[in-house]
């Protein structure tokens, strides 16, 4: 009896369930790594009272040089155009108030060194922040959960109970594993964690659904009554490997295309997409055959 996939599926399930247990515990205690776009961080504001010539560029270059020299790593620089001046806002997870004087000196010196912007006055402030900027994650969990149930009902109508349960399990496992990995690895959740969470469940569901159809097709086209459901699952899944590999590589390409720009927000988004791709494709590839064969009666012949 060929059991390659089934054995790997058992190992994957054990690792995944341990990761989910650990991850959910961490999530319960610490939550996600809420970057400062959610709540509780610090903002460094550098403001000039006139934006003539290239004053804003000089201010920005001086600030970036200072951060690089002093090992400071800000998130998402944003700019504001004031009526006459300009303002740069850098976001930090720690209080940088003690660096305020040095940053002001660096920026003011840079402005004074350039004749075309000499005389422009800079000010620096550090603010403690408290705020949120996106809809609660809980609604995304609710939506994906209800969606998975709807998918299972659809698969039950199309294929009966084994395919329905297999699709449901792979989708739920993928989503739970994604949440757990985010909680364990502490990747910043950022404003789009709800999106990538949903993506992990969607990827697992759609791949699982097409694989379930492949099982049905195999049974229809093969008259060998001595082959067990476990062997069917194993053989078909190995045949589906190329599809999973292609989907996984495509998702990695999508993630890399965003990350290549180097913008912090895109790097985080790309990393989350990679998590979603790994959780979605692995869960569908390994969990679908395992659950399908288990419900059909793995050792029984078809």
């Amino acid at each position: 009896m060929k059991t390659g996939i089934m054995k790997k599926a058992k190992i994957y399930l054990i690792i995944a369930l341990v990761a989910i247990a650990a991850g959910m515990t961490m999530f319960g205690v610490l939550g996600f790594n809420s970057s400062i776009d959610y709540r509780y961080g610090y903002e460094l504001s550098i403001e000039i009272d006139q934006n003539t010539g290239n004053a804003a560029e000089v201010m920005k270059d001086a600030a970036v040089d200072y951060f690089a020299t002093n090992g400071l790593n800000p998130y998402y620089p944003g700019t504001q155009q004031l009526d006459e001046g300009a303002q740069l806002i850098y976001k930090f997870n720690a209080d940088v108030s003690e660096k305020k004087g040095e940053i002001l000196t660096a920026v003011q010196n840079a402005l004074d060194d350039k004749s075309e912007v000499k005389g422009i006055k800079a000010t620096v402030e550090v603010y403690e922040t408290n705020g949120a900027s996106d809809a609660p994650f809980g609604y995304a969990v609710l939506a994906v959960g209800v969606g998975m149930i709807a998918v299972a009902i659809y698969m039950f109508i199309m294929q009966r109970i084994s395919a329905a349960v297999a699709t449901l399990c792979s989708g739920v496992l993928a989503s739970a594993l994604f949440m757990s990995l985010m909680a364990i690895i502490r990747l910043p959740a950022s404003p789009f964690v709800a999106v990538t969470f949903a993506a992990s469940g969607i990827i697992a569901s759609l791949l699982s659904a097409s694989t379930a159809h492949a099982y049905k097709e195999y049974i229809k086209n093969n008259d060998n009554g001595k082959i067990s459901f476990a062997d069917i699952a194993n053989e078909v899944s190995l045949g589906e490997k190329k599809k999973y590999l292609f989907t996984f590589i495509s998702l990695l390409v999508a993630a890399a295309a965003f990350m290549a720009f180097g913008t912090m927000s895109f790097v985080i988004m790309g990393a989350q997409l990679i998590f979603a791709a790994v959780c979605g494709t692995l869960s569908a590839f390994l969990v679908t055959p395992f659950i399908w064969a288990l419900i059909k009666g793995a050792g029984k012949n078809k």
Partner: protein
Amino acid sequence: MRPEKRGEHSASGGGNMSKGKSIILLSIISLLTAFLLVMTFVRFPIGVRNYNSVLGAIDLDYDMVGGTAYTLTLSEDNEEDVDDIDEVVDTLEYRLRALGYSVFSVKAVKPADKDVKDYEIRIETKTTSSLSSDISVVASYGEIVLKGGENANPTEEILTEEKAIAGANYAGSYLGADGSTTYYQVAINFTEYGYRELMNLISNSSSYYLQIELGEGTVLLSGSSPITDTAFDGHSLGIVSQTEAGARQMALQVNSGGLAYRYDISDPVEVTSPLGSDIALKSAIAIGVLSLILIILFIVLFRGFGVAMSLSLLLFVLLETIMLIAVPGITLSIGGVIGIALSAVLAASEMFLTANKIRTEYGNSQKTVKAAVKKGFTTTLVPIISMGVCSGLVAVFLLIFTAGAAYCFAATFGIGVIVGLIASLLFTRMFCSLMLPLAGDKEKFFKFKRAEA
């Protein structure tokens, strides 16, 4: 093995498709595709105006292009200390969502190195024509007060014993009697107590005037005209506004009242995207790079069939972009960009599934290329539709339950699922049918190989 003959029946099983016909049809489709490409990506002047391309017409949200920021500072004549700034932030966020803003930033800030007790609140969101008045509504102070009397603009407070108003909702628009003016309706729903007492007051007066105010000085319903019991539909009083924004603002204010604290609103300030610079451009380039790499993969893996898949994927990208302006109410945020990328991957996976199936059919049987293509499309029809249905179901519930980036993701992904199904089931088959008659050695053209016995 029977050699392929030129001019055989097309893969769709229809009549003969001659080489000439294929060339003509492919040329027409190529011209149409080129036209769509130009209209989607190229900007050019037309007379004194500019054509901004389909891409330029997409409505972008705050996280893609930035917007406007307002700072709320606690007013000097604010009477109560702010106990829970989180609650204030949550209330402001709720109100912004109620007014239709999906992507925004609401942050409470205070100097970290000074002994300052109170937070300022910074609101950043997309610039709209009604933003200034929306922010005034969102940050308005005070409680709902009902005033009534037998004279216009009454000053006497009424219905103070219990809660008189249950809520309010924006009730849609209608055309006025003149047939050209649109009015926007708000339904104010009274409680049993409020309705009963108000009816008593109206019936006991020859004419009765009702005025609804928020805090001090903000009049929501002017008491300049008398009201009668005919103005009520059940327990609801209908009020008309000249603008949709005004109607929605009024409904929100009646529903949620004012903040418990008085804030002064700063002048607006222009802000860039919180995610970085040129986010919209970078997103477009990323999607373009993803599409290009998928096209290269298709051609390398499947050669001639890969060309058909590539053309379908190109049409998918163009159609998806056009849908972003054709479907009303879509404002593209970063969640929407992820939705487009994921739907492109889904469409590519569906095409890959078909291509692989065709290759397997040809390899494991004695079918001709055309027969294998037909069988491949037939066999993968149900799995591909299932993939689309599963994806679409989750997208529907995301649309129902979520807001912000997740909502936009669901919208663009849902559109992408439908367009992807059309591309993988219809376009790919069409291109394949058109290209088959042009291929001399079909086996070599499609990179098919019989399995060794």
